[in-house]
């Protein structure tokens, strides 16, 4: 079944299939992945039997990544499982949650704005855990995805989001400077992920939606940052996927300049519509609400529609709820694999 697109009947590995798609090559079928980070599949049913918190313990982190692959059928490993790690070097307070509750920021650090010039960023303990997890997960067959949270989402995790959104209008220079500092840290983190064995980088930036920022702000603030990150990743010979949340219709065209090798949207954006505008292959976008609350027959149907509409990589549309049943995730991955 899986010989098309590879040489002399040699089995196409999950890693090769994903990289082929990102390189614009034809494959036997689309890969089905759940990258990690904001969009991770370490749902309650996957992690509930584990002893330690997969958000901070190295063994648990590696174990959770492997379990996601084995139990749900997603064709990748991906770490971490939250979007708070990139904010830790900026001295925010994080509630690590438990293995059943996602970590979240509990206290901002507004004071950082007074020290932008002398800022010195050190990896948090958990960032180092992520790097080590990647090196442990590294292998020849299954792609390992290093996940980063996008610059706008980090900035609005470090300081009060409304303060930052206002700063974008009132003190553009400072707003840009802060965004730039965060972006440089994200580049550094992704470079180290690649050095430790990540096969590709996935970045989610849920706070940078077209609905919140509008096209003009998005082009002025976000595109240069995305470009910078993409270029740095490309210099290492690695590909990058960018995910944007919400109704992104107004910024679709701008994303052609982001440098992403694949773009992913919430189910609010239709695959066909996105394909008309975008050059890069589309990743997506099986509704996460359906995955959480729907019947598995419907999940199967939705997955088939997404494939028919021409998605290049099948994936959930956004972050999965912890309560998403494995049964539904399996229905999704099986549907893709059976279409091969």
């Amino acid at each position, binding site marked *: 079944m899986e010989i098309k697109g590879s040489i002399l009947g040699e089995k196409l590995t999950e890693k090769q299939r994903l990289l082929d798609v990102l390189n614009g090559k034809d494959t036997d079928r689309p890969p089905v992945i759940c990258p990690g980070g904001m969009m991770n599949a370490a749902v309650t049913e996957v992690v509930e039997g584990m002893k330690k918190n997969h958000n901070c313990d190295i063994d648990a982190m590696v174990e959770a990544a492997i379990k996601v692959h084995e139990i749900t059928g997603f064709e990748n490993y991906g770490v971490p499982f939250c979007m708070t790690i990139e904010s830790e070097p900026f001295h925010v307070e994080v509630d690590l949650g438990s293995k059943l*509750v996602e970590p979240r920021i509990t206290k901002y650090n507004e004071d950082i704005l007074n020290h932008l010039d002398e800022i010195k960023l050190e990896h948090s303990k958990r960032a180092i855990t992520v790097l080590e997890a990647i090196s442990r997960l590294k292998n020849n067959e299954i792609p390992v995805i290093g996940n980063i949270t996008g610059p706008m989402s980090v900035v609005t995790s470090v300081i009060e989001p*409304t303060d930052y*959104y206002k700063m974008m209008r009132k003190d553009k220079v400072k707003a840009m400077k802060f965004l730039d500092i965060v972006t440089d840290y994200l580049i550094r983190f992704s470079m180290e992920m690649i050095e430790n064995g990540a096969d590709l980088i996935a970045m989610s930036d849920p*706070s940078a939606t077209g609905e*919140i*920022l509008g096209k003009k702000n998005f082009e002025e603030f976000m595109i240069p940052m995305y470009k910078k990150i993409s270029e740095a990743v490309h210099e290492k010979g690695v590909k990058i996927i960018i995910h944007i949340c919400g109704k992104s219709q107004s910024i679709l065209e701008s994303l052609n300049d982001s440098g992403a090798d694949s773009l992913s949207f919430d189910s609010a954006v239709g695959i066909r519509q996105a394909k008309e505008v975008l050059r890069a292959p589309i990743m997506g976008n099986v509704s996460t609400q359906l995955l959480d609350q729907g019947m598995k027959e419907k999940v199967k149907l939705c997955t088939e529609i997404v494939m028919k509409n021409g998605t290049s990589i099948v994936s959930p549309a956004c972050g999965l709820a912890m*309560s998403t049943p494995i049964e539904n995730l399996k229905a999704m991955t099986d549907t893709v694999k059976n279409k091969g």
Partner: protein
Amino acid sequence: MTKKELFEEIKNNLIEMEEDVVEELCKKSLEMDIPAKETIQEGLIAGMEVVGQLYEEEEYFLPEVLICSDAMNIGIDVLKPHLEGDVSSDKIRAVIGVVEGDTHDIGKNLVKIMLEAGGIEVHDLGRDVALDEFIHKAKEIEAHFIIMSTLMTTTMEGMKVVIEKLKAEGMRDSVKVAIGGGPISQRFATEIGADLYTKDANEAVRKIKEIHEAA
């Protein structure tokens, strides 16, 4: 400058995000002996209504709406001490917050801004709010509405708990419950017995006023 011209100036400067000018103009309205309530209504709130329209038409986005709202609040701060009589007693009073377990509050903040612009008295409990806190605050201010939002499916059940608690306290008849946020739907609202679900901030203001008038 006539009263009408002054209101127009306040409105336009609010829309143009000129906080300092709005502040000056509101002070001027007091020098001109214009009743504070009138300036709030015809200048500040009228301006925010236009901002709401611009947001709906995708001319303005969150950064602009937030700054306009600041301008409105600066104006209100100037005028508030000069409000005559107890004007707040006939206002709709609402408690708003993001339910426990969730810290995403952009949507909630936007609803709060639009409610305030709509002349509703809003008591904001912030984000990650303990469920009992909604009840306590509603009791304290004799709220007409409890408004809850969440962006996470994991925390949706908390809304149901609040409604149960209201029943247990014998407050369910006097407090209406409105809910919203990414994963919330009309179906969920009906299922847990909430009075109102809206998909955006402007709709929330309209519907809350309708429900209040009907009650």
